[in-house]
């Protein structure tokens, strides 16, 4: 079966929106971080909304566009005549049309990177070749981190890549929401050395409200992983958002859950608004443009709560790896 799968694997494609080298906060050592597109959740505060579309698409940056310096290079580029100019010469697009398009003529003519293609297709071999190249540069502790979106959305592709990493003895990490079929999730985790799993809210309804889905599958997957005797290092992660999941009550529930499952490391990520421009470049409204902020003091109070329960709690990139 293995052999058959590998043969198939070489034809499988993964959709990836970014590969970041020298990624230093996503697992031990220096890493290459592979960001997959596609996400089962639609978190309202998402910092990487370009990962939601599970196909190649464009982003358009107002700030990069040099219409004000007289550039109109894209005027005839769009096969759908979807780039419209106002009286001052400023271009605008109808996102409904752009999201269905796959020609990228606008990207090819724009010299300013205002139009850019954000998703690229990789075969298993292409991605593994790139990882083997970067293997030379990670140093003793580093490796690859699969992130997204959620890499589990590319189950078959990811599994093939992981098996090859395993053979090459490449250290593997994953950043996931663990929202996938249990057998698939466990199969993937067999080849993972280090995992961050997001637990966005312990409250079922609130989880659905913020992310679009219930948390049942997430929690049961974590339980199953522990039960299966997984040998890797597991760190829970929570993007901490004021008014959503920063309550003491939520923390207590999470602590209880961690204690039940013998987990003792959590990483709280202070809400940031760095993804705002990406929402704009995708023509989307950002609900969190003016709330959700946490202060340093509030973060430290939460951290204290975990520490008092003998759970190692790290804030942001202040981690011991």
């Amino acid at each position, binding site marked *: 079966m293995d052999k058959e799968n590998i043969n198939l694997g070489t034809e499988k494609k993964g959709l990836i929106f970014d*590969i*970041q*080298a*020298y990624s*230093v*906060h*996503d697992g031990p*050592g*220096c890493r*290459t971080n592979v960001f997959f597109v596609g996400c089962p959740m639609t978190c309202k505060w998402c*910092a*990487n909304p370009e990962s939601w579309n599970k196909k190649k698409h464009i982003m358009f*940056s107002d*700030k*990069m566009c*040099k219409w004000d*310096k*007289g*550039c*109109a*290079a894209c005027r005839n580029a769009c096969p759908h005549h979807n780039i419209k100019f106002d009286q001052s010469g400023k271009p605008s697009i109808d996102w409904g049309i752009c999201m269905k398009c796959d020609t990228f003529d606008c990207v*090819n*003519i724009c*010299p*300013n*990177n205002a139009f850019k293609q954000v998703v690229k297709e990789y075969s298993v071999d292409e991605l593994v070749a790139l990882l083997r*190249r*970067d293997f*030379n*540069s*990670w*140093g*003793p*502790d*580093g490796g690859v981190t699969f992130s997204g979106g959620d890499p589990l959305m590319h189950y078959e592709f990811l599994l093939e890549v992981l098996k090859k990493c395993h053979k090459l003895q490449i250290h593997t990490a994953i950043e996931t929401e663990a929202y996938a079929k249990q057998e698939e999730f466990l199969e993937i985790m067999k080849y993972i050395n280090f995992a961050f799993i997001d637990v966005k809210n312990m409250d079922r309804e609130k989880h659905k409200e913020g992310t679009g889905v219930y948390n049942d599958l997430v929690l049961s997957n974590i339980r199953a992983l522990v039960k299966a005797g997984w040998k890797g290092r597991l760190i829970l992660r929570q993007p901490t958002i004021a008014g959503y999941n920063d309550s003491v009550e939520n923390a207590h529930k999470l602590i209880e859950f961690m204690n039940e499952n013998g987990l*003792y*490391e959590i990483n709280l*990520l202070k809400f*940031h*608004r*760095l*993804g*705002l*421009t*990406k929402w704009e470049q995708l023509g989307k409204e950002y609900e969190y443009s003016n709330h959700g902020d946490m202060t*340093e003091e509030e973060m*430290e109070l939460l*951290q*204290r709560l975990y*520490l*008092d329960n*003998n759970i*190692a*709690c*790290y804030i942001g*990139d*202040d*981690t*011991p*790896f």
Partner: protein
Amino acid sequence: MSSNETKLQDVLKSRGIDIAQVDEQLEAEIPEAKESSKKLMETYYTLKVTADMEVPYWYNRSWWENDGELIEVRRARAMGAALAHMTPTIQPYEKIVMNKTKNVRGGFPFPWTTSSFFLAQADALMAEVDAPAENEADAVSIVGAGGGNVTKSYGNIISLAKKFGMRKEEIPVLVKTSEPWRGVSIEDLADKYSRTLPGYGQYRDLMDSVVCMFDSFAIAQGREVSNYYVPLEYGFDRIIEICEEKMAEVMGEAGDDGILGMSRGYYYAAMKEIVMGLSKWCENYSKQAAYLASIEQDAELKANYEKIKEVMHNIAHKKPANFWEAIQMTVCCHLGVTNEDAMSGLSIGRLGQVLQPYYEHDIREGIMTDEEVIEILELYRIKITCIECFASAGVSGGVLSGNTFNNLSMGGLNKEGLTAVVPLEYLIIEAGMRNRTPQPTLSVLYDEKTPEDFLMKAASCTKLGLGYPAWMNNQGGMNYMLDNYGPEGMNLEDARAWCLGGCLESSPGCFQPLHFDGKVTWVPGGASPTCGTGVHFLAMPKILELVLTNGIDKRTGKRVYPAHNKNLDSFEAVYEQWKQYMNDSILILNKVNNIQMDVWRKYLMPAVNSLLKPDCFKKGQHLGNMGARYNASINVESCGTITLINSLASIKKNVYDDKKFTIEEMTNAMINNFGFKTAYETGVFSPDFRESTENSTKYEEIFAACVNAPKYGNAIPYVDQLLKTYEYDMYKMVHSYNSYYGKPLYLCQISVSTHGPQGFITLGTADSRLAGTTYSDGSLSAAPGTDKNGLYALFESATVYDHGIHQNSQMNLKLHPSAVKGLNGTRKLLDVVRAYMRKGGFHVQFNIVDSKTLRSAQVTPDKYRDLMIRVAGFTQYWCEIGKPIQDEVIFRTQYDEA
């Protein structure tokens, strides 16, 4: 430590998580600079850069009084007279003393090297106006207007070379001192013979078009590594005795060398003269300190002057007996050499390894503590920072950016092939972290044998965002040494003694036995003359432009090369013609340089440096007579490597492979700046500032194709192979020319600051760079904004050839401080360095960008086009982020730094 941090450590320990690392998780606080450093730096910041006529006056007077004397003796006597008559200036709180001139930040003109400028401008100078630009290269060079630079005349101060302020009353002395050199300065004599060359017209065309940046004889010494061995081993009185013994032995004896054998006697006579000058110079400082002690009321300062008096008196005669005297002796010799010629890039070398025996002695004997040694090293930094180089605006601003590159190297291997790191080198880094001055810049010679804790210490210094230490590949450097100096007999042992001259000019060295403290220590030091003169700064992208325009500079309308009239019907035809023009350039530029440097060595043979450099003192020959152990030290310097490579890739891809447009259309688009306004029109020189004209539509498809052509730095074999071919071709090309020492040239790939002025004179290039904007910097940094596949892909591209074949390569990287925060961050920074070194990268240096930089990036975003912020799970270009978010990030960064 906050209570959460303590608690976290407890939790981690109880959970058994990586305790060893966690224990040292918090970085040690860096202590403040010492009081004395702070006081002297306060003064330094208020000082202007000066030029005065004391040294030129005494040099001139002695020189002409000794008309008819044997040339090497006459030169050394004049130099010695200049040193012996210089007014000693000592500031309160100084412990390490001596200055280049009577002023703290001082330089002086060298009319015996170039007088024409001063003579031609005599009337203007006398009329107290700004010194006008000297030549084309000066006219396009911009000297930073801030800090101590005197870019304009004011009050009683006249601006020279857009940098130095000279007092009005000294201007007549300058003019008068220059007068006797009319027609007989190095410049004039060299020009007289250069004019006899059949290719002289070609030479002028290259210089006037700034295709070649400057004549390197203007800074005839430097870009080399100092050697302090002889005075440390013997002391000045004993050196004088040895000179007398040697004169008795070899005067009148030619040995078996009918050409230079007789010179040995005169050499030792000359060395006696210069050492007497050096000794007198020290003694004058001792006397000045004695005087200051006599009038000082403050007990502490008085004691300090007494100490200086003692140190300066001792080193005026005896070999150093302790650390203080030894480091003071090195300062004396270093400044002595910098006063012989307009000097930039006289590197200090592996000072820690040289001074370790003295440090060890003093610590053991209780003479000094580590903290006292650190104070001396902090003050040493200020002393070196004050070294100025008086040269034209083109040299000091356009080439050097005002820096004199006194590089201090650490690490590497010792004579036995084991790590050379010594305890004193940890303190040198510590002093550099506490007293953050531009000089000496620090370099780590990275070797797999270098101790990890030393590398961590160095990385924790790099992290401060000071730009030092930079990291060099020790094995790569040794390979280069053996390849380049092997024909002169260099063995593995000497190869281990190499280090950086100037900013990045790998220079050969050797080990010598220092007898001190009852034992012998083999100390490394430089063993060659300058490793940084030759054919200097070829604007390679401009030469490619001239291939396309059949030899005519379309910016000025002047012809630079003879028309090649070739049908450029293939990529190979373009590349071959580019090599032809390169060859045409090097051929004539090398001949002119050889004449210039030969005239220089005949009249201005180094005196102090010919005492210091092995094996001059052993052989009895000065540096001009190849007294040094290694002499294949002359080079060709390139500028704009990556702009060239990306342009070639675009032409190959768009014109010849994909046939999107013709070479004529490409050329036409370049001449018309792709329809954009030129930087000359807009005044904005940033590569990504583009203002369209009514012509833009004509070129937008060509321009987009140029933008989208494969770019270096992304691990794309299509373009990286061009780089590889280029590097090996250049090796062959430059090695086919010989220097005035009769040795092959080699390639030096540092642009320093020349990618600014040479970019200025270059039209739009096929890689989509617009007219007048800078070339990509260094030799292996990606063009701004074009490395889209991250650091590791850049490393892959950069190491497609063996870096050991050339003198250097240069890689500048920017990192955000969040990537290197904490002890883990230091380790991860070291991981990056090690990754690049393991792949064979020769040099890497980092800009760790802090909130201050971010704030200025906000004001001038165009300058920071390639600045990315990296936060967990997120990456974005700084310039693409809105101001409110930028403010937030700045705030976060500030918070992190607090």
